[in-house]
C-alpha cells in the first residue's frame, strides 16, 4: 500500500463503499446482458464523482492525480466495465482541461457537475494506433464548422451529453490538420450508429458516432486549428494512468476472488493448498503491488508538476500487462471453478486494458524513444579548440 494523506484515505474508503454497494452487486448481471448501467450513474450523481477531475472553482471535486487513481482503482475492482465509463468520462474532460477556454470549461464541466458524462472521439476504423489517419472533416464556414464522418469504438457514446470530437480542418495536412471540438448531444446531424459487443468490459457502452453536416459554432473549437494531435496526445498522457488504475483494481479483485474461493473450498485446516498454489498467489500479490507502486509514483510526479509522459506510458503498459497475467493465472489456478465464475469475466475484461487508450505496442514506442533517442544530426566540427 502507498502512504496516503488522511484526505486520500477518506476518499478511498468512500469509493470502496460506493463500489461495494452500487457496482459489485450488478457487475455479473451487466456483464451477462452486455447492457449499460444508468442506475450507477444515478447513484454516483450525488457524490459528483464524475466531476472528480473538475477544478473546484467550477464546482468540481478537484482531486489530485493520485486521488483520481485511487478512485479508479476501486471502480476497476468493482467492475472494469463500469470503471471504464468513469475513466472515459474523465478522458473527455482532460482534453478540455488541456485546451479549453473559460467558456468551454464552464459548459463542459458544468454538465459534469450536474451529473452528465462525457465521451472522447478520436478513433476511426482506419485510424487506431495511427490516430492521425482519420477521415472525419470539419470544414470551416463563415460562422462555424461543418462536421462530417464517423468515429468508432467510442466509449460512453450512447449515454454522454458532451463530447470531444477530433476532425480534420485541413485534410491535405494529415495529422497536422487535425483539430478538436466540443460537441453536444442532440446537435442536428449527430447520431449514434452500431453498438459493439465485446469480449469484456461488456457493460461499458461502445458505439459508432455518425456526423452528417453537423453545424458547430466557432466557439466549439478547442485550442487552435491544427492543434488536435497535440491536444489528443497530452490528453492521453493524462488519461493513460486511468487504465493503469483500472488494471490494478481488476487484478486485485482477481486475487481476492481466488483467496475467498480457496477459503471456502478448503474449510479443513488439515487439507490446505500446497506450495505450488500458494506461491502462485504470492506471485500475483508481488506483481499487483509492483505495478500499483509504479502507478502511484507516476501520479505523484504529475501532482508535483514534473514531466511524467514516459512514466505514464510505462504505468499503463506495466499495469495492463500485469492485469492480463494475474487474471489468466486466476482462471488457471482456480481450474473449472475459475472458468465458470468471476475469474473468467476478469480475464476477458483485462484484455482491453492492453488495447485501448493506445495499445501497449504504441506505449512501448513512446517508452523506447525515451530509452534510445534517435541520434542527433552530426554537428559541423569546430576548427581549433580541443
Amino acid at each position: 500500500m502507498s502512504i496516503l494523506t488522511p484526505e486520500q484515505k477518506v476518499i478511498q474508503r468512500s469509493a470502496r463503499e460506493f463500489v461495494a454497494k452500487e457496482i459489485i452487486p450488478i457487475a455479473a448481471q451487466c456483464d451477462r446482458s452486455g447492457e449499460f448501467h444508468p442506475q450507477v450513474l444515478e447513484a454516483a450523481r450525488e457524490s459528483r464523482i464524475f466531476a472528480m477531475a473538475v477544478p473546484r472553482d467550477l464546482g468540481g471535486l478537484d482531486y489530485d492525480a493520485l486521488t483520481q487513481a485511487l478512485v479508479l482503482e476501486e471502480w476497476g475492482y468493482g467492475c472494469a466495465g463500469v470503471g471504464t465509463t468513469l475513466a472515459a468520462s474523465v478522458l473527455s474532460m482532460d482534453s478540455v482541461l488541456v485546451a479549453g477556454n473559460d467558456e468551454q470549461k464552464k459548459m463542459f464541466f458544468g454538465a459534469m457537475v450536474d451529473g452528465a458524462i462525457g465521451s472522447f472521439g478520436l478513433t476511426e476504423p482506419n485510424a487506431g494506433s495511427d490516430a492521425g489517419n482519420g477521415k472525419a472533416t470539419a470544414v470551416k464556414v463563415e460562422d462555424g464548422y461543418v462536421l462530417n464522418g464517423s468515429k468508432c469504438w467510442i466509449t460512453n457514446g450512447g449515454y454522454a451529453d458532451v463530447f470531444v470530437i477530433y476532425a480534420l480542418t485541413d485534410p491535405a495536412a494529415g495529422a497536422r490538420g487535425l483539430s478538436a471540438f466540443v460537441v453536444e448531444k442532440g446537435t442536428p446531424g449527430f447520431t449514434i450508429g452500431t453498438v459493439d459487443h465485446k469480449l469484456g468490459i461488456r457493460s461499458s457502452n461502445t458505439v459508432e458516432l455518425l456526423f452528417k453536416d453537423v453545424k458547430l459554432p466557432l466557439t466549439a473549437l478547442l485550442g487552435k486549428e491544427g492543434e488536435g494531435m497535440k491536444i489528443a496526445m497530452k490528453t492521453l498522457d493524462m488519461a493513460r494512468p486511468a487504465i493503469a488504475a483500472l488494471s490494478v483494481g481488476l487484478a486485485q479483485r482477481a486475487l481476492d476472488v481466488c483467496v475467498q474461493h480457496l477459503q471456502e473450498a478448503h474449510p479443513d485446516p488439515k487439507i490446505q493448498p500446497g506450495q505450488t498454489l500458494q506461491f502462485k498467489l504470492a506471485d500475483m500479490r508481488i506483481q499487483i503491488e509492483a505495478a500499483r507502486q509504479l502507478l502511484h509514483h507516476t501520479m505523484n510526479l504529475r501532482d508535483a508538476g514534473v514531466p511524467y509522459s514516459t512514466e505514464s506510458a510505462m504505468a499503463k503498459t506495466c499495469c495492463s500487462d500485469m492485469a492480463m497475467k494475474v487474471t489468466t493465472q486466476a482462471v488457471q489456478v482456480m481450474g473449472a471453478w475459475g472458468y465458470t465464475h468471476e475469474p473468467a469475466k476478469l480475464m476477458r475484461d483485462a484484455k482491453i486494458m492492453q488495447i485501448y487508450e493506445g495499445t501497449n505496442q504504441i506505449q512501448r514506442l513512446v517508452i523506447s524513444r525515451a530509452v534510445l533517442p534517435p541520434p542527433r544530426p552530426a554537428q559541423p566540427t569546430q576548427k581549433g579548440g580541443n
Partner: protein
Amino acid sequence: MSILLTEEQQLIGQSARDFAKEYLEPIAVELDHTASYPAALVKNLAAHDFLGLFLPGEFGGAEAGFVSMAQVIENLSRASAGVASILVNHSLAAYALQRWGTPAQKQAFLPALASGETLGAFAAFEHGPRPGVGPQALQATHLPEGWVLSGTKAFVRNAGAAQVYVVLAGTDPAAGGKAVAAFIVKADAVGLTVGEPLETMGLRGCPVADLDFEHVVLTDAALLGDLKDGQAITAETFALASVAEAAQTLGIAQAAVEHAAAYAKTRIQFGRPIASLQAIQTLLAETATDCHLGRLGLLQAADLIDRGEPFRVEAAMLKQFLARVGSRLLVDTVQVEGGFGYSEFMPLPRLFRDIAGTTLLEAPADFPDATIAASLLA
C-alpha cells in the same frame, strides 16, 4: 512435421479438417451463442468414426491410435473447440473403460460408445479440492445391497447429454482423498440427477453441470478396475486429458495465428500493412514458435500412448508448458488485431474464451508439477 506422421494419420487429420470445414465452421458462431448441445452433429461425428477412433476394432472402434486422435481433436478445435470438448470428454470415459474394464464391462459399453449410440462422460471434479474431499464429496460405501454413491460431482462435461458416466468417488472419508475408486454409472440410475447447466466462458455447446447422487445403488459390476486402481485411473486419465487438451489448445491457437497473420497483411496503419512492423512480426513469431514446440510435445506424448509406454510425465510437461503459454497465444493474437480483435463480431474473442478453458479444465492446477517432480525424485 509431416515426416512424423504416417500416411494414415495424415489422411485422418485431413478428414477431420474437411469435416470441420463442412460441418463445424457453418455452425460454430451460432453454437457459441446458444450453447445448446448439438445432438445431430455428435451423431455425425460418430458416422465419421471419430467417437471410437482409438477403440479396438473388436468393439467397433477404428483402432487408429492417439496420434490420429490428436490430429482429429486439433482440426476440429480449429473450427469449434466446444464440439471438440464433447469428443474429448467422451473419449476420456471410453479410454478408462477400455483400459481398466473387465471383458464384460467392455462388451457392455464400448460398442455403443464407439458407434455413437451412447455418449460417455468422465466426472473427476468436485466442489472440494480433490475427489472425495469436502462436505459435498462423492462417497462410495460398500453395503449389503452393493455400492451406494452419495454426494456431488462438479463441472462435469457432457453432463445431461451422456448416457454413461465414469465417476471418481472417495471410498474412505478419513483418507483425505487418497482412497478413490472409479465407477461406471448409467445416466438413468435411480437417484442420479443432472444440475442446471453452468454458463461457461467458452467451449460452449459442450454442456457442463453438476451430477447429484442421492443414494445411487450400483452392483459390484459397476466398479471399474479394482479398489487399488483408483489412483492410477485418476492420474492416467488426467494425463490423457492433458494430451487431448493440448491438441485443442494448438488447434485454437493455429486458427488464431492464421487469422491474425491475414489481418496484419491487410490492416494499414502509418501508411503500410502492420505486418511490416517488427513489433507485430514478433508477436506472430513467438506464437508460432510456441505452437510448434507444443505440437512436437503433443505428438511425442500421443506416440507414447500408441506404443503402450508410460506417458504421464510427458503429458504433465505438455500441460505445464501450455498452461504457461496457452492463454498467452490468444492474448497476443488478439493484440495484433487491436480493437477489432476485441469485438465479438470478429472471430478471435471466441477463440480467446475457448483457449482459457483448454489450458486448465481436466486436471488440477498442481497436477503437472507434482507429476513431473515425482518422476525426478522417485
